[in-house]
């Protein structure tokens, strides 16, 4: 009988939703406030951008990297910058900037001394340690290849792109990530490339069908643009890389428009897999088959497309174990008329698009999303989700189509039952204020257990947001040093605290064109200590640590355990004679 079946269906639905709940449902407590503290940080920087953005290349830049370049334990900040087409053709450059953390809530511009002001038409920035000296190096993705800055350990960087064998990369690079895919202890490098685009043969603004948006003349693309292949560079261990893209099977033969790339072991088999978000096309999920070979299982895994089998404008990528399953789910930001996609990792390379049922999709349908991150903004032990937005067409402001160029940001609080609560309107003016956001990075800038959010805006100054008005929750964080890879990229830490089991991973890249801090942070709610820490090191080794007091930062060395931080941080080399 249909009616009876229907009732049974509803009952089953209720049962299943209950079953999805793992912890207790979050109390509807006060909403954490994100205060804009940019002014007090004394960060003065301006991302250049043409007002009209007549070309797509003028809409895409804006990466931010939290990189503790001097290894003093305080995250520093690097902002990329990009000229517009006219500037570039006239030979003018846009300065990127490195800000040193003064340990007192302020930052000092050290760009000049560091020598990282003019890498290129800079899009994104990621950190890694390609020469494994313990000093984090900086890779900048450019409109026209990449620039690799070797960290000299004395506050300066040297452009070693050519010596490293990366100068042959001349495509429009966007996403990049370091990761040791072959387990040899050396960080390899993946670079995703966007469109094949020639500044001397530019598609005319508004001229063609792909240059119109709801009847408005706008920049051309990305629809209709031809893409460029991606590259995997194997670290040779002598300061150079070899392009192994084709033999590894990750060269993107379809030339899709690659944006964010990120390494993680999605199926927990001990080998690093690779996720690549492609704009307007299917995403790649390259399963690491071992022996340096990968197979794209994006379609099979359910991460290639949206829930209806449609390709989305995949831009920023966040990974996080928001359900405490020990598996990293994926959150991808998209263009307007699409939704922020949450792909729950169900294990064994099976993902489920739960954007709707998780409460995420609806609030995001009208926004153009970029940088995003899972982060425990209120330190309650459950990862929340944050994203910045901003359109690509300034012309929408004059078109009366209900879309604005500047858009508010988004904050979703984890409800501990597989769903999120949209608190964007209640989280303070910093979140609500419309902006043209692009890059986003997360890190505890001031070593006080609160994770700041650093946003690079396409138009104008960046933003630094600091959580406030949150309950006095406890926290703990870890700075790791591997026995082989000194930055311990993709090391995993599982923290057990009472009933809470949280897993995090050290990662290079992610979000959109950005790099969050390497230190792994865990909110602990009301717990004043943790019961156990289990670390799976990139070498394959595991380590278990016992009870640790909360509200502290710990440095952990593979094999040795908790050590003074000076033990794992490199010493500044003596100045050259």
């Amino acid at each position, binding site marked *: 009988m249909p009616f009876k079946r229907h009732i049974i269906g509803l009952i089953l639905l209720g049962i299943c939703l209950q079953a999805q709940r793992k912890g207790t449902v979050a109390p509807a407590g006060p909403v954490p406030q994100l205060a804009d503290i940019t002014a007090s940080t004394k960060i003065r920087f301006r991302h250049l951008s043409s007002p009209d953005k007549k070309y797509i290349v003028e809409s895409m830049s804006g990466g931010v990297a939290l990189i503790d370049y001097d290894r003093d334990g305080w995250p520093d900040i690097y902002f990329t910058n990009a000229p517009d087409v006219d500037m570039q053709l006239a030979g003018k450059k846009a300065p990127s900037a490195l800000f040193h953390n003064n340990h007192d809530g302020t930052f000092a511009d050290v760009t000049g001394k560091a020598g990282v002001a003019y890498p290129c038409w800079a899009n994104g920035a990621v950190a890694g340690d390609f020469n494994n000296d313990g000093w984090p190096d900086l890779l900048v993705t450019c409109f026209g290849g990449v620039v690799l800055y070797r960290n000299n350990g004395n506050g300066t960087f040297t452009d070693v792109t050519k010596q490293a064998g990366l100068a042959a990369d001349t495509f429009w690079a966007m996403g990049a990530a370091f990761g040791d895919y072959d387990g040899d202890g050396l960080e390899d490098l993946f670079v995703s490339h966007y469109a094949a685009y020639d500044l001397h043969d530019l598609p005319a603004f508004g001229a063609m*069908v792909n240059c119109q948006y709801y009847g408005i003349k706008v920049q051309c693309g990305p629809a209709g643009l031809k893409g460029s292949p991606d590259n995997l560079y194997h670290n040779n261990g002598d300061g150079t890389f070899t392009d192994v893209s084709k033999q590894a099977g990750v060269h993107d033969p379809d030339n899709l428009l690659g944006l964010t790339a990120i390494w993680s072991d999605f199926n927990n088999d001990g080998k690093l897999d690779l996720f690549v978000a492609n704009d307007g096309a299917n995403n790649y999920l390259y399963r690491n088959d071992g022996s340096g070979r990968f197979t794209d299982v994006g*379609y099979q895994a359910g991460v290639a497309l949206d*829930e209806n089998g449609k390709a989305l404008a995949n831009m920023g990528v966040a990974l996080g174990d928001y359900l405490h399953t020990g598996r990293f789910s994926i959150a991808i930001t998209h263009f307007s008329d699409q939704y922020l996609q949450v792909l729950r990792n169900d294990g064994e390379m*099976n993902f489920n698009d739960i954007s709707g049922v998780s409460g995420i999709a609806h609030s995001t349908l*009208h926004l153009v999303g970029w940088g995003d991150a899972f982060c425990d903004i209120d330190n309650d032990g459950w990862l929340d989700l944050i994203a910045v937005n901003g359109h690509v067409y300034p012309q929408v402001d004059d078109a009366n189509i*209900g*879309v604005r160029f500047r858009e508010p940001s988004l904050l979703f609080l984890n409800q501990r039952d597989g769903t999120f609560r949209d608190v964007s309107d209640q989280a303070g003016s910093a979140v609500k204020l419309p902006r043209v956001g692009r890059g986003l990075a997360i890190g505890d800038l001031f070593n006080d257990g609160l994770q700041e959010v650093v946003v690079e805006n396409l138009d104008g100054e960046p933003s630094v947001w600091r959580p406030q008005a949150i309950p006095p929750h406890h926290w703990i964080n870890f700075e790791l040093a591997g026995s082989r890879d000194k930055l311990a990229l993709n090391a995993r830490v599982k923290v057990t605290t009472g009933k809470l089991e949280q897993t995090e991973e050290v990662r290079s890249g992610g979000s959109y064109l950005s790099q969050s801090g390497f230190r792994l942070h865990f909110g602990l709610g009301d717990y004043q200590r943790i019961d156990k820490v289990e670390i799976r090191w990139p070498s394959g080794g595991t380590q278990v640590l016992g009870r640790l007091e909360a509200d502290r930062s710990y440095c952990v060395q593979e094999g040795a355990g908790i050590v003074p931080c000076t033990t794992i941080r490199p010493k500044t080399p003596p100045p050259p004679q």
Partner: protein
Amino acid sequence: MAQDPAQKIGELETQVQKHLQEQKPQLAIPLLREIVSLDARNVNGQANLGVLLFFQGDYTEAMPHMRTALQIQPDLWRVQALLGIAEKRTGNPKEAQSDLERSFPNLDDPKIRIEAGLELVEIYTAGSHLDKALALSGKLQELAPQNSRIPLVTYEISRQMMYHSLLSLMMVAPDSAEMHMLMGGELGRQGEHAAAIAQYREAIRLNPKLPGAHFELAEQLRTSTDAALNAQAEGEYKAALQVNPYDELSWRQLAGVLSAKGDYQTADDHYRKAIALQPRDSEAKTGLAITLISTNRSSEAIPLLESALEDDPSNMAAHYRLSILYRRAGRTADAQRELESFQHYKEVNDKLGKVFKQLAGPSDRL
């Protein structure tokens, strides 16, 4: 001594055969004329002379010979079809229609049949018998699905029907709710969404119970770029259902809106209502299946998706989701098959998209 006419005709027929085998119809025509002058009842002579003259483009001289042949032997369907075409081309549509209608169902040569059918469609269209024209073009589409002329003809007939309806409505009730609804549809198709919404609102103001008006308004609102307008779609679908609780499409679309909001329980209910009203709605079944998957009831989703594909084998979403579910269920071969089907239809879809874009504007560089 005079030659026996039958013997003479026999000799002439032999020569005609030879010329025709040599692809020299112009040499055969005088011989056929001689045959029919010797024997006006010679059906082969009359028919062949008519056909050869037809293909020479001499319809005026061809027609009497074909008519004579048909008087002698009425089941010469090919000849009758050609006669009908000749009559049409010489300004005699009434007789042309009669000959083509009689011959068309009996023709076995596919090429002639399609040509005759298309000529008949033109006659119907010119005579404003659009319903007959549409029915016949549908038949031709079945006979020759690869023939690109037929969909174009069908499209033209449909367009004419649309404008006829528009004209009729303008004449009968230019200020009616129906007229505003029709205008809304036209504007929406042209991408003038704000104007379309205004027309639908006016239609509803004039007649709040106008069938379909709330649904069409909801469709425009749902696809708007404006979040505020978007939010109004749900109310309009509900209004459509108040006017007509059996409006299957409104149940389905409302379910889609609710699932996007995360209200899967109500979406589940509404999808089921839609399917109960239209058991072959592939989209509703897919929507319900996605709702089930999202709420961790994937095993229930598999038969729904399979059923959706029986109803519409080109349903890309169903192929995609089914491939994923099969894989999880360990049905690797089935998963691969569904993935291949998905990719096949995706390619077709992408090609169509490119064609539309090319048609929509210049694309020399992008």
